[in-house]
């Protein structure tokens, strides 16, 4: 039985990434343009992200369980790592969506990136002041998406590394005999 347990434990100790890689980032993309939805979805998939695309701010809020009719029950497990939204949309704008997200206790920590075809400085300032993570000019570049992904992965990596360390500690405490054996082998 020792043989069965030991290799796994050594893997955890020596190479955390082999144990299991972190979940891909889940990005919620919001845009009323069909062309832009297809484009951003592809950019995100090519960057190894899981993507959910919706065509309006209202639908985005529904998806997050923040719609008018919703109660927040059942959305605790919904993991969204990043929201990318177009600015100019009919009905609710990306700016208004940003505000609603920042007002919600469940999702205010989720970074929100605004995309716009117009380089209007007061608009950019307003979005950043309201808590937007970044403001991207359309058409969005693959390098923009990769940069966002990398900076978010660093945050995820940190929490993943901590959970690995925690798991190592728990395993040590659960199987003290085997850890002695491991030390003996080395």
């Amino acid at each position, binding site marked *: 039985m020792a043989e069965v347990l030991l290799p796994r434990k050594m893997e955890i100790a020596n190479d955390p990434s082999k144990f299991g890689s972190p979940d891909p980032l889940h990005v919620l993309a919001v845009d009323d*343009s*069909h*062309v*832009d939805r*297809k*484009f951003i979805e*592809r*950019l995100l*998939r*090519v960057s190894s992200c899981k993507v959910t695309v919706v065509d309006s701010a209202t639908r985005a809020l529904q998806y997050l369980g923040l719609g008018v009719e919703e109660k927040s029950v059942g959305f605790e497990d919904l993991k969204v790592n990043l929201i990318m939204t177009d600015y*100019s949309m*009919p009905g609710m704008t990306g700016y208004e969506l940003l505000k609603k997200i920042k007002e919600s206790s469940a999702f205010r920590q989720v970074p929100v990136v605004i995309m716009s*075809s117009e380089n209007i400085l007061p608009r950019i300032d307003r979005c950043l002041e309201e808590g937007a993570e970044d403001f991207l000019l*359309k*058409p969005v*570049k*693959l390098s923009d998406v990769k940069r966002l992904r990398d900076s978010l992965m660093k945050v995820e990596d940190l929490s993943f590394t901590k959970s690995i360390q925690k798991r190592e500690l728990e395993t040590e405490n659960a199987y003290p005999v085997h850890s002695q054996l491991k030390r003996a082998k080395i």
Partner: protein
Amino acid sequence: MDTLIAQLQRQFRDYTISLYHQGFLDDQFTELKKLQDECSPDFVAEVVTLFFEDCEKLISNMARALDQAGNVDFKLVGSSVHQLKGSSSSVGAKRVKGLCITLKECCDSQNYEGCVRCLQQVDIEYKTLKAKLQDLFNLEQQIVQAGGRIPQVDI
């Protein structure tokens, strides 16, 4: 002696380069091509199809608005051309995008004649691009059917 594949590949290369040089396409189209691979082999064709659908719909909306002579909803025309400018920019349709900018200016100054003329040009331009891209995709198909690879074209 050139094989069929080599001939087709040369045609494809020349045609692609001409589309860029004549201003039909810009860098953004190149970016779209980079996103295409074995997992998503029809990505470019799919996106441009959506774009041409947008053109049809938005141009039709604008034409209808401009038809209400004396009672033109310039706000509607403005928002439609804004959307069209956005999609054309996203696919690299350079000439269409340029015309949208001009149309937007006419709309902002409520220049009725200018809007009508410009919209006609947008209509002609998107149809021209559609035909040219169809020719390009046909060339790609012929290369593949002849057993060749589609060459990477550096502009």
